């Protein structure tokens, strides 16, 4: 304590102050640095994804004069749809290319020429003709997607200074494309295939429509199962459950399930739904059920919070009028708690939409070209599609993966925005 020999308290305090404040500033800066590095990671991720992905919304197209010659197509019976669908459109494209470049005659040169157009372009051509049947016998200028290597070249990803044998595209091809580009016959345009096609081995033919519809169907199953069940469970636990061991066990169970790794739910789905009950693989129905089990705890927990937020005075008022407990809950408490529950459900759905691992377990990882039409059709979902494409080495797939991620993030952000709006709109202070 202070006495005449030693310095007084305040003197000691003041002497140490500079050091202490330096420490204070360091600590504060450390905290700020932590927050900023979180942001930096987020921004880095977003910039890479968008930087890679925005190009996938464009696609190189080549304009060709196609002669829809009925004889060449061997369509002799216009009533037979199979004839239209399965005609030899590839040779149509090839002859159009040859006519455009009559000078290229050798096998090698022709091969070079054919490599300009996407190997799946005959499919587009078939669709065009089926939709415009009057074109048969006419010459039409059509735009067809170019091959992914040419697409990559158009987007400027090809380093032309590299030696020729180290790139996927030859000098002759580059010359050819440059010529067509300057005449406007090859140009970048909006990539509608990406939004209208299913999966494909060719990047330029691959789209996310199948995956989007698969995701939609799966979410429909998940929402229509998990929301009612979660609300029912929340009502029971919050309003009816007696305080006893069983209720305790249920509660602990729910909290634990919320933290169980998602892949374990996949194992459950595989062992019980596929192997025990013999449900089909790769279908949205099973995917939806598995995701239901996974999202249930989240929605139950938020639904209970919403029920808790309804003040007891409302219950008492209704009970006082002679309503049964069930009537009190369904007529008064539930409507008031519903916005909060919906918010929880949307967040649960966002979680389900982004989930991949459990769906791999139940076979939704197959290569599926067809667009699913029902709950029991083989399908894949958007995150799984991203996973599948991310494995492909082609530049075109890297950019499409990023684009698919952008679409996925768009939906997630939209869902969360709706949740936030809902919360704002119905937030009530009692």
């Amino acid at each position, binding site marked *: *304590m202070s006495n005449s020999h030693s310095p007084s308290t*305040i003197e*000691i*305090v*003041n002497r140490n*102050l500079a050091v202490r404040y330096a420490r204070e500033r360091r600590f504060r800066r450390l905290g700020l640095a932590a927050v900023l590095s979180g942001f930096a990671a987020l921004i880095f991720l977003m910039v890479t994804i968008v930087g890679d992905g925005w190009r996938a919304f464009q696609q190189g197209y080549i304009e060709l004069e196609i002669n829809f010659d009925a004889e060449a197509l061997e369509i002799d019976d216009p009533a037979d749809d199979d004839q239209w669908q399965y005609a030899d459109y590839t040779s149509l494209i090839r002859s159009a290319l040859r006519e455009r470049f009559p000078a290229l005659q050798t096998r090698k040169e022709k091969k070079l020429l054919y490599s300009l157009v996407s190997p799946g372009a005959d499919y587009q051509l078939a669709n065009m003709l089926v939709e415009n049947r009057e074109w048969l016998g006419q010459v039409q200028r059509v735009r067809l997607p170019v091959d992914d290597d040419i697409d990559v070249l158009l987007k400027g990803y090809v380093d032309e200074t590299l030696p020729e044998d180290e790139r996927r595209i030859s000098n002759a091809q580059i010359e050819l494309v440059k010529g067509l580009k300057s005449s406007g016959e090859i140009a970048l345009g909006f990539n509608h295939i990406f939004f209208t096609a299913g999966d494909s081995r060719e990047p330029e033919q691959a789209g996310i429509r199948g995956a989007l519809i698969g995701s939609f169907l799966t979410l429909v199953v998940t929402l229509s199962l998990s929301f009612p069940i979660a609300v029912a469970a929340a009502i029971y636990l919050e309003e009816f459950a007696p305080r006893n061991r069983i209720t305790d066990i249920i509660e602990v169970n729910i909290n634990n399930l919320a933290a169980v790794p998602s892949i374990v739910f996949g194992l459950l789905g595989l062992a019980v739904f596929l192997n025990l009950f013999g449900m089909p693989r790769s279908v949205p129905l099973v995917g939806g059920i598995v995701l239901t089990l996974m999202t249930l705890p989240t929605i139950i927990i938020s639904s209970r919070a919403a029920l808790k937020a309804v003040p007891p005075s409302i219950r008492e008022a209704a009970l006082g009028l002679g309503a049964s407990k069930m009537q009190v809950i369904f007529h008064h408490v539930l409507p008031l708690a519903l916005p909060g529950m919906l918010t929880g459900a949307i967040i649960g759905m966002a979680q389900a939409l982004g989930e991949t691992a459990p769906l791999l377990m139940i076979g939704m990882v197959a290569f599926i070209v067809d667009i699913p039409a029902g709950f029991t059709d083989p399908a894949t979902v958007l995150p799984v599609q991203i996973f599948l494409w991310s494995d492909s080495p082609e530049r075109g797939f890297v950019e499409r993966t990023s684009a698919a991620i952008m679409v996925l993030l768009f939906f997630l952000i939209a869902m969360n925005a709706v949740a936030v709006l809902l919360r704002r709109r119905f937030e009530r202070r009692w």
Partner: protein
Amino acid sequence: MSNPIKNPLAAEQLVADPVPSAGEPISMHPDADLSKTVGKIEVKNAKMSMRSVDVFYGDKQAIFDVNLDIARNEVIAMIGPSGCGKSTFLRCLNRMNDTIENCKVTGSVLLEGEDIYATKQDVVPLRAQVGMVFQKPNPFPKSIYDNVAYGPRIHGLAHSNVDLDEIVETSLQRAGLWSEVKDRLDQPGTGLSGGQQQRLCIARTIAVSPEVILMDEPCSALDPIATAKIEELIDELRSRFTIAIVTHSMQQAARVSNRTAYFHLGYLVEVGKTDDIFTNPNHKLTEDYITGRFG
């Protein structure tokens, strides 16, 4: 409400209730009554001195133009009905109000002639000089020893462990807790009884050897025996420290303080020698309060 005629017990109660005197509701006293403090606010050679202190919480004004001096080594009690601003005023004296968002203090608060709200004033040394004991005992969830040693440690007051041991022992002795806890200094401070916890908090405050100690209703959470011990302690501490204590118990104010200040609705209504205030209040409001008209 039940009909008093049908319920004889209730009727009896009604009659037994003192008939409210002609006095208007407290809030209706004319403002002229409040704005000027009755009694002598100045003291010679003041330890702390407040002039024209206003406190705002956002738009709401909580303290109106308070002028008051606190003398060296005196115990000054601040009393008044709840919500009168006495705690707010106390927290101005070591700038604890800084921790509350949107709280603004104007006017001057001088400690030894230095304005503690001056821009160059630093709250850290200020609070080392003006310590505070709170309403609810709030020991840290640490050992008894670490609780008391916390202040000296952060301020670097001890040169060695021996020094620190000595500070802890002296502080606990001064707080009258040493004999009760000397064998269990390593046990958590939260394990003590309420009264012991509060004395631990006092020991923790005096371990930094502050010049002024602010006490914000230090006994309101304690039982009468613990309260008596704290009051005894305050009496012993007055020789070393200047103490400002907020209390809602008039008996406590009468027992421990030299001077008493009466606050009402954010105004300092009356201040004076404790004996005078309690035997012969000059202001109508003070009189009403100490005679138990309201509180």
